[in-house]
């Protein structure tokens, strides 16, 4: 029986602490793609070849502590049920891609869930480090330590000119994708967001909704990440992203200040209404829940509301996702049931039991 304790609680330990700029930056993540030499990439690998990749990479855990980040637990994707897989996706511990992969896909997760290593996703190895707040440098340094630990035992596919060789041409070179998840309600309310996002895309960065490719930003959450992986050093990529994120933080802060100065009553009304609806609604669809939770988060940041805490907000963001709702309240539910349980869960969390 696989160890599925990771799907039982919504909030990973790493998300509990307070971190720099955490009223605007939710989390920082660095992902590194690596492949083994002399083996086809997972897409073309035979069952035997992907099993070999899995074996070689998980064997390392027997004689290396991967840089001392605690015990790692191995979960084979084929041994997980659909809801557990979805919960792991909602907690960002695995990608939707890996969840759909039955051929020798696996994930190694550290005790505090801040490190997850995906095996046989699009590439043989994807090392991911998550940190709360704006700590993209720390996440990068940590990912590099784990990268070195793997590299001490296996030969990576590497080419002098092209760097680390990856299945997709968009990852070649450093194989590194660094991203920062930001909550930007004031920039959205003051209609500055599009201008900023188009400026961001001109410096080799990209902005997406929180669940990756093709999804729109829900609840004013935006993920800023590097687009370029070839022709820049890892340090340059990290510094570029970090610099831009700091600027976006400044813009969001001054937009918040302006909103408070110019329309305090309206903002307060909006925050209190959202808090009221979340506290008493009987049915909440995911879009409304995300928007109201965003208002409440802003309210707490601006001092309009005293609670819930940032940790509780982060927890609610994950708990109100479809996979987690089904995990908490029973296997199969239709949309209406989900909306009802979502409302119930939020009411419980906010302390009303109506």
């Amino acid at each position: 029986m696989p160890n599925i304790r990771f799907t039982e609680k919504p909030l990973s330990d790493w998300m509990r602490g307070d971190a720099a700029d955490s009223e605007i930056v939710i989390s920082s993540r660095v992902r590194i793609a690596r492949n083994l030499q002399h083996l086809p990439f997972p897409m073309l690998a035979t069952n035997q070849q992907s099993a070999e990749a899995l074996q070689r990479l998980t064997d390392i855990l027997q004689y290396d502590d991967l840089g001392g980040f605690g015990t790692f637990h191995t979960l084979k994707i084929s041994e997980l049920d659909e809801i557990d897989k979805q919960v792991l996706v909602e907690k960002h511990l695995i990608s939707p891609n890996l969840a759909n992969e039955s051929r020798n896909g696996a994930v190694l997760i550290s005790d505090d869930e801040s490190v997850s290593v995906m095996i046989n996703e699009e590439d043989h190895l994807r090392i991911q480090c998550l940190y709360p707040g704006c700590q993209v440098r720390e996440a990068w340094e940590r990912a590099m330590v784990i990268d070195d630990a793997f590299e001490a035992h296996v030969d990576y596919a590497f080419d002098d000119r092209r760097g680390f060789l990856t299945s997709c041409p968009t990852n070649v070179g450093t194989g590194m994708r660094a991203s920062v998840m930001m909550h930007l309600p004031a920039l959205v309310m003051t209609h500055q967001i599009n201008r900023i996002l188009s400026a961001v895309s001109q410096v080799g960065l990209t902005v997406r909704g929180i669940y990756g490719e093709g999804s729109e930003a829900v609840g004013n959450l935006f993920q800023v990440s590097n687009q370029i992986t070839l022709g820049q050093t890892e340090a340059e990529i990290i510094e570029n992203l970090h610099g831009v994120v700091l600027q976006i933080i400044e813009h969001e802060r001054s937009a918040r200040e302006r909103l408070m100065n110019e329309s305090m009553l309206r903002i307060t009304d909006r925050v209190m209404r959202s808090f009221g609806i979340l506290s008493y609604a009987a049915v909440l669809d995911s879009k409304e829940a995300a928007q109201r939770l965003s208002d409440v988060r802003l309210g707490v940041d601006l001092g309009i509301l005293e609670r819930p805490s940032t940790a509780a907000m982060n927890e609610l963001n994950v708990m109100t996702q479809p996979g987690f709702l089904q995990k908490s309240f029973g296997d199969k539910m239709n949309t209406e049931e989900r909306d009802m349980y979502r409302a119930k869960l939020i009411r419980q969390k906010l302390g009303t039991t109506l």
Partner: protein
Amino acid sequence: MLCQECNMRPATLHFTKIVNGEKTEFHICETCAKEKGEMIPGTPNGFSIHSLLSGMLDFDSSTKSQSPGHSGPQNLQCKDCGMTYAQFSKLGRFGCPSCYQYFDNRLDPLFKRVHGSTNHVGKVPVRTGGRLKVKRQIDDLKKEMQQHIVQEEFESAAELRDQIRELEKEMTEE
């Protein structure tokens, strides 16, 4: 698994649709997918990074004129995994690390367009990137030596020259 629409044919398409953050999983057969007109990743209606890339690759091959008698890029094939350049342009993904060598002279325009650059300057792995590490070390020493020469510090420059020679010798011996 049977198609969730017709319950008759086996489901061959499995995908997740995200609308306003609401995720829905689909397991359907190709016939029902066409009838329903669902957005399938990789089709012109859908959006995926790979379909976007394959668009770029097709564009790339159509703009280059092919002289008769010569084998075009579509005939290139990776001798390790069997992936052809035509398949690569369609999928937008390599089959194995060797594909990079076999398709090498076709890749610069693609990388230029995606990354604005064609050469890696970042991290070098210890085990498989040993030569590159020494090469970069030599380049750095040469730059340093030039600076000493400009400042007429010939003794230091000579020391660096010896170090460079030593490293170059090591590289040719390997």
